[in-house]
């Protein structure tokens, strides 16, 4: 049996286990609520506009205002390109990038540590390459988080279409795109979570260390980005590649996808080496 098939079987099992578990259901509810909150905020905001408490701006004025805000973060080309997207969807995407790493950690911190702690891994270690187990588990978590993010995004898309303030074509053009960007970004953090989980036998230790590591990654990346001399150092961190995903250059987008997934794959590979070498 090929390692790919082994990893695939493990990934499917992990997805089924996660989605069927109490934790998985709770996370789904959380993601659904995560999608409902911005939707409600948007509806309330639109009601305020309708009631005339705010001066209604033309679509072009809204786009220009949005572009101005985007220019604070992105260069002119990207800002102009992104200004065509519904701002709700863009904010949802940015929000996803902020919160999803933590949610990935909550879902995946015990994926390997838990199996080693309870020695459940012994049931599969004789039937599957350990590298495949690690890869399969990471793929499983990635699949679960992607499905959960889809629920989150889908909720917002449905509300936006039902509410009618945004053209359906814009929702359908940008919604799946932002979701895919989120999936790519999640890939990197899934890898990091797998690595942290592979280092410990006790899941709770993996969780707390994971939180510390994620915070350190964010903090280091942010500090390095503050100074021109250290800015190149930010390319060692996945958050830097998020900006490539929203580029107007297709090649940059592909590069961003490859970099994020590659970064995650590298972390999974290190985790696989650790698990392969350790006693279980």
């Amino acid at each position, binding site marked *: *049996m090929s390692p790919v098939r*082994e990893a695939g*079987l*493990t990934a499917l*099992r992990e997805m*089924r*286990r996660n989605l*069927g*578990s*109490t934790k998985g259901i709770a996370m789904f509810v959380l993601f659904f609520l995560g999608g409902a909150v911005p939707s409600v905020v948007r509806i309330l905001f639109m009601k305020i506009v309708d009631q005339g408490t705010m001066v209604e701006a033309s679509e072009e004025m809204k786009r220009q205002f949005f572009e101005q805000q985007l220019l604070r973060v992105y260069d002119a080309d990207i800002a102009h390109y992104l200004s065509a997207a519904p701002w709700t969807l863009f904010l949802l995407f940015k929000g996803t990038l902020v919160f999803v790493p933590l949610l990935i950690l909550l879902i995946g911190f015990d994926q390997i540590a838990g199996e080693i702690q*309870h*020695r*459940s*891994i*012994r*049931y*599969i*270690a*004789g*039937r*599957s*390459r350990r590298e495949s187990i690690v890869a399969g588990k990471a793929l499983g978590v990635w699949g679960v988080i992607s499905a959960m993010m889809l629920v989150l995004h889908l909720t917002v898309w449905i509300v936006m279409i039902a509410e009618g303030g945004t053209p359906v074509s814009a929702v359908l053009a940008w919604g799946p795109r932002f979701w895919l960007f989120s999936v790519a970004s999640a890939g990197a953090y899934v890898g990091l979570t797998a690595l942290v989980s592979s280092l410990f036998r006790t899941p709770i230790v993996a969780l707390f260390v994971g939180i510390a590591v994620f915070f350190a990654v964010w903090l280091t990346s942010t500090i390095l980005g503050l100074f021109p001399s250290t800015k190149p150092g930010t390319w060692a961190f996945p958050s830097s590649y998020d900006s490539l995903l929203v580029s107007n250059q297709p090649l940059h987008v592909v590069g961003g996808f490859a970099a994020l997934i590659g970064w995650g794959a590298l972390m999974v590979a290190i985790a696989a080496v650790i698990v392969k*070498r350790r*006693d*279980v």
Partner: protein
Amino acid sequence: MEGTEKEAAASNGSTPGVAAPAALGAPVPADAAGAARAAPPPQASVLPVGEAPAAEAVVREAPAGPDFASSGVPGTSKVKLSKKSGKLKLNERPAAIDLKSVVKTFGQLTAVNNVTLDVPDGSVFGLIGPNGAGKTTTFSMLAGYLAPTSGEIYILDRLPTAVDALRGQVGVLPQDALLPAQEKVGRFLMYLAALQGMTSGQAKTAVEQVLTEVEGRDWWNIKCGTLSHGMAKRVGLAQALLGEPRVILLDEPTAGLDPRVAYGVRQLVKSRKGRATLVISSHNLQELEEICDYAAILDHGVLVAHGSMAELTASSSEIRVELAVGPIPEEQVRAIQGVKTAHFDKAARELNITFDRHVGDAEEMIRRVTYVLYQYNARISGISKGRGLEQRVMELTE
């Protein structure tokens, strides 16, 4: 009980070595007859009944022609390994499992120290030893869970970590591995079967079959976390037996089980005899003595003895005769041809006799010894072959 070394002194007079030669209709051996004087008429029916029928004890005979070298401990032996065509052989049977100078250390602690042994193909092999002896560490190395610090381990001529080459050929029941609590029994076993390379249809059939074997046909939709200890153990056993593996490693398969379930598990293991090579690590010596053909005794990480069960229990080279108050013809017994030593333990009131098994088998020696004892009016309370695994382990381990 089958496999116990305590040999019966048959009440019906049909057991060789207990009834008088005349009663058996056999000629009195010259060596024994020469030492004997006029004997009273045979009264075999007054002799106490032992614990096991003689026919069962035959099961424990040493296999023909083993190449044993003395370990220096009376009645025990170590298997001499011979290398032939790159494979280690024991009794002309290919070795299913080979360990060569295996060492495992955890920091400063040496858990397994230079263990070399082989497990003959198709045999049931016991790993024996007190707590901390290195049984589970050895077992875990066999299963590929732990990597040896040095030395080599081969399962079916492959490294234990060669998962792809050994796929579906090795089944393992780990001692303390928890089943995935949230997963249903059927789903879990289906996943394991799929990893063994079975198609969905094959996996379903195999899982149903193996669940039936462990009397868990109705457990398909039960979550593993809700299983009782006994049920979980049997699910663990089911996954080890899944897909007819050639080598089955069982770590404490009956630990914590009630007697009825433990009996069922033993029967299940016995049913695999001959179909697979089984390695059983256990504290339950009676169980191992009952099931195993071969065993290894570990103590403080060192292999202190290993060989066939008959050799380990010395059942083919030692007999013990329990004598009631009365004459003790120690010298006369010592004079019997084939007897190497005869020593009467006053405290236990046991006459311990070791003999050259090339002169006669245990049954023949029992016949000769009892004849002499009978001639000298010794009052026999019981006769047993060897010492029993428990006693042997107590002698060999600290």
